[in-house]
Structures are given as structure tokens and as C-alpha cells.
């Protein structure tokens, strides 16, 4: 494979992994109107959970269960569900803002645990040398990456299909009902707080799934892969693609990740070495502008939410 094709495969694996996170956020924000300000925290819980369960036994570390990869990912997702329950039960019966604040808090706390709980997370060095699923079956890293792209694409496709089925079900209509008019939903005998909790946990579990897939691909975890900026990047992907639309979530993930990669390349080529850190700031400013400008001028994003009108209406 040429260098560019190899890079493209690498790029698509990461972009499609993020698209699963974006779809998780989409069911929370796009369909139900829940603001999750700690996306990176749940992605990290899934990644670290997977890493700890899949990793080989090491004397100086807790964990090292050496579980098969799929089981480890499921374990990471279960941890995400637990964290989401703790935050969700505290906040979802209160004003909507409190969920935003609490998720912001859990993301910071997870970052601290990742950095400081060295005997579990490996601290600043992270956990390295994790087994990559089925790596031994391939003769070159390039063909393995191609295989892994297939795995991630199938997983993203499955998540897409499952969410599309879910939002078209009566349960899915309930989400929008709770978002649009909580009082009406309640008067029809629904429990909005419960629906919110279900959606919040589901979205966070999907973020955890993506975290697990990410670890399987790179073969290590490090706190540097879970910086707060990722939360903003995921939000930019969602709003650019158009919230309330899963196709938009995938388009946004690939598009914004491409923009990020290209702006990084442009800065490293064009700016002198002395100004590289300022270049990094400019790159982040682009993400911030993308969020704020889209929110003001094109709130429906590139694709946006499809109108849903009852077939009984005129």
C-alpha cells in the first residue's frame, strides 16, 4: 500500500470510531435534548476499562485479567453504564443544566484518575503493549489495519442500524415527545425522567464501545488520547453533521476529523517551528468557531433532522 492509502485507512478507522461516539451523543442531544459536557470521560472509561480487562497480568499493576477482547469491551461498556447511572440518577430529575455540569465534572474526575491512579491506569505513561484482537493472523500491520477498518465499519454500521430502528420505534417517538413537550408526554402516562435516564445510559455505553474499539486498534491507552478538547471535537462533529440525524453524525465525524487533520498538516508545514504551539491554539479555535457559528447560523447542520409528521395529519 502506498503511504497515502495507509494513512487513509488509519484516518478512517479513527474517524469511524469517533462516529460511534457522535451517534451516542446524537441520541442524547439530537433526539432527547440532553447536554453531555463530558463525552471524553465516557470514551475514556470504555477505553481504560477495556485496557484493564484485556491486558496481560503485570506484577506492579492491578488488573491484567487477560480477557478476550470482545468481553473486555463489554466490561468497559458496563463501567460506562455504571458511571452514567451515578451521574444520571443525581441530575436527570432536576433542571437540565445540572446534567451538563455533572458530566463536565465526571470527565475531569476520570482524567485525574487516569493520571494519578498509577497502579490501575499506569499514570502518565498509560498502559502499553495491550494485545490487539486477531493480530497474529495477519502478516503485515497494513493488512491488519485494513481488517480493523472492516471491524470498525461493521460496528458503526450496526450502531447506525440499531439506532435508526430504535428511533423509529414507539420508544423513539417518545424521546422526541419528551424533548418537545415534557408536560404532554407526562400527561400521556409516560415518565420523562426515566426515558431520559435510559437514553443517557445508552448514549454513554456507545461512547464506551468506541473507547474499547479505539484501544483495540492502537494497542495502548494514555491520558494524552483523552484530553478535554476531544469533547469539543465530538460536539463539532455532531452539530456540523446536524443533530437529530444519524447519517449526519457519521458525515460530521469524517468531515470534522478531516478538517482537523488537514489544518494540523497545514500548520506544521506553514508555521515556523517557534510558532507551532500557537498553531495548535489556532486549530482549536477553528473547532470553537465551527461550534458557535454553526449554532448561530445553521442550527440544523449540514443534513439536519428530518421532519416527522404523523401520517394522520393533513
Amino acid at each position, binding site marked *: 500500500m502506498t503511504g497515502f492509502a495507509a494513512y487513509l485507512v488509519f484516518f478512517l478507522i479513527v474517524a469511524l470510531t469517533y462516529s460511534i461516539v457522535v451517534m451516542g451523543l446524537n441520541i442524547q442531544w439530537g433526539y432527547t435534548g440532553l447536554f453531555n*459536557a463530558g463525552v471524553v470521560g465516557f470514551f475514556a472509561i470504555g477505553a481504560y476499562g477495556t485496557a484493564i480487562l484485556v491486558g496481560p497480568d503485570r506484577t506492579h499493576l492491578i488488573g491484567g485479567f487477560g480477557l478476550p477482547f470482545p468481553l473486555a469491551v463489554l466490561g468497559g461498556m458496563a463501567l460506562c453504564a455504571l458511571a452514567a447511572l451515578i451521574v444520571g440518577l*443525581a441530575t436527570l430529575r432536576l433542571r*437540565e443544566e*445540572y446534567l451538563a*455540569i*455533572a458530566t463536565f465534572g465526571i470527565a475531569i*474526575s476520570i482524567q485525574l484518575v487516569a*493520571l494519578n491512579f498509577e497502579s490501575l491506569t499506569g499514570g502518565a505513561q498509560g498502559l502499553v503493549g495491550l494485545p490487539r484482537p486477531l493480530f497474529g493472523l495477519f502478516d503485515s500491520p497494513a493488512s491488519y489495519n485494513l481488517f480493523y477498518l472492516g471491524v470498525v465499519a461493521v460496528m458503526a454500521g450496526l450502531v447506525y442500524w440499531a439506532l435508526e430502528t430504535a428511533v423509529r420505534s414507539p420508544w423513539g417517538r417518545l424521546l422526541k415527545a419528551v424533548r418537545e413537550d415534557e408536560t404532554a408526554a407526562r400527561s400521556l402516562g409516560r415518565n420523562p425522567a426515566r426515558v431520559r435516564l435510559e437514553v443517557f445510559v445508552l448514549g454513554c455505553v456507545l461512547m464506551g464501545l468506541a473507547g474499547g474499539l479505539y484501544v483495540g486498534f492502537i494497542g495502548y491507552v494514555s491520558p494524552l488520547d483523552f484530553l478535554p478538547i476531544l469533547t469539543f471535537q465530538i460536539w463539532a462533529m455532531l452539530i456540523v453533521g446536524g443533530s437529530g440525524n444519524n447519517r449526519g453524525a457519521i458525515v460530521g465525524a469524517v468531515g470534522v476529523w478531516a478538517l482537523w487533520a488537514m489544518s494540523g498538516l497545514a500548520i506544521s508545514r506553514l508555521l515556523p517551528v517557534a510558532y507551532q504551539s500557537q498553531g495548535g491554539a489556532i486549530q482549536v479555535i477553528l473547532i470553537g468557531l465551527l461550534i458557535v457559528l454553526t*449554532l*448561530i447560523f445553521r442550527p440544523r447542520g449540514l443534513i439536519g433532522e428530518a421532519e416527522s409528521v404523523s401520517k394522520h395529519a393533513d
Partner: protein
Amino acid sequence: MLQAIADGILSGSIIALGAIGLTLTMGILRFANFAHAELVTWGAYMALGVLSLTGAFMGPLAPFSFGVPLLMATLVAMVATALLALAIDWLVYRPLRGRANHLTLVFGSFGVSLLVRMVILLLFGGAAQYYSSTLQIAMKVAPGLRIMPDQIFTLGLTAVIVVALHLFLQKTRLGLSMRALAENPELARVNGIDTRHVVRWTWIIGASLAAIAGVLYGLTVQLRPEIGFHLLLPLFAAAILGGVGNVFGAVIGGLIVGLAESISVLFIPAGYKLAVPFMILLLVLYIRPTGIFAGTVGGGKS
């Protein structure tokens, strides 16, 4: 232990100043402003910018490490921060107000927080900076307790501001309008209160206090572009603990959060200090979501 309590009261008073502005905006403008803590950073750096332009041409006022220049710089920083808050309100929040989902405003402030932080990083660089390079000798107040004169100044200033703000809210017409708008927006409007006027002054007061908090933080700790990011959770915890919209509550909340942070270091590794406000926040939300002193907009859904 004594030292930890003294340090906690000090950082708590800085958190309190920031939390007052946050609780006012949360109570009156009715949204959780994720960008509020960035106003603290902005204020701190604006003062640094003024100092670096004018230079510390007058010696420090003993026993403090700073002199008249920093006081002047603080005034300029307050104006600059108020202007930034008004500009953000006009450019970002005004077009987003009235959208069906009021969380759009929270989302907007989330994006703005990133922008402000990065602009500061771009303008001033990422390294830690100080207002003054002179080292201050801590005074030994009691056995095992050392306090720097700057820290006493910080405490005194906070107390004066809290009293002044209390009188403002109780005695002046504008203060009364602000409380009215926080308690019942519809009723306030019916009674002819100019909402836009009150909103403007809410930003000016909140941002000015944030700027002062930023300068005091820079004076007693150090300046970094991440100040605001690290203060955001303590500010939210303090505002919610004290009851959203309740100024006095924000002060008590700030002191509790500051004390809890500094005392926690005696029992858990210092690396987890930043998670303490989150634990307080979760506890409050589980046990008493309206805060210790019921705020104007309590925990219930509005």
C-alpha cells in the same frame, strides 16, 4: 491542619467572588454559563497585559507585593472583562435566546469557553506568569500557620465586596430589579422592569467580580491559561451548594468548597484535589438540590 484551613479560606474567598457572578447570571439570565470561569482568566491576563505595558513604575506598597499599578490594572481589567462579557452576550447569546431548547445557550457558552481560553493562550502563551517577581516573606501568625500579606488583602477585599454587593442588591433600584427578575421574570416584566437593562448590568457586575477574582488568583497562585478551566467546577459547585441566584449562599458555598479542597489534601493524594468539588456537587444534587439556602431558581425543573 491550621494551615490547611487558612489556605482553604483564602482559595475559598477567590472561588466565592467567581461564584457570585456565576450565581447571578444563572439566576437572572437562567442558564449555566460554562464560559464564566474564562472571564476570570481573561481578567487576570488583562491586568497582566496592562502591567507589562505600563511597567511597575511605582514601588510596592509595603507590606504587599504589589503597588498602585496593579490596582489601576485591576480597574482596567474589570472594564475589559465587562466589555468581553457584553460582546459575547451580543454576538452569541442574543441570537440564541428564544430558541426552543434553552440548553442551546449552555451549548453556546460551552463553545465560547473554548474560544476565550485559546485566544488567551494565543495572546499570552502557555507558560506560568506572575505579576511581580519579588518574593514575599510569609508572616508567622501562630505556631504552624504562615500567611502572606497579599492573602490578608485578598480576604479583606472579598469581605468588602460581599457587603457592598449585598447593600447594592437590597437598597438600590437596579439591585431590586435584578432580584425581581431572578425571582419572577414574567411579573418583573409586567411591572415595567427593562429586562435588557438588567441583563446588561448583570453581565457587568458578574464580569467585574470575575476579573477581581482572576487578579487575586494571579496574585496568590500564578497565571496560567487553564485557570478558568480548573475553576469552573469549583464555581458551579459553590453556586449550586449555596442555592442558585443566592449571593450570600455563593459566598458560603465558595468557602466550603475551598476548605474542602485544601483539607482533602491531608487525607487523599493531592492529585485528586480537583475532583473534590465534583464530589460535593454530586452530594448536593443527591441530598439537597436546592442548595443550603434555597436559591431563587431551585433544583426543581423550571
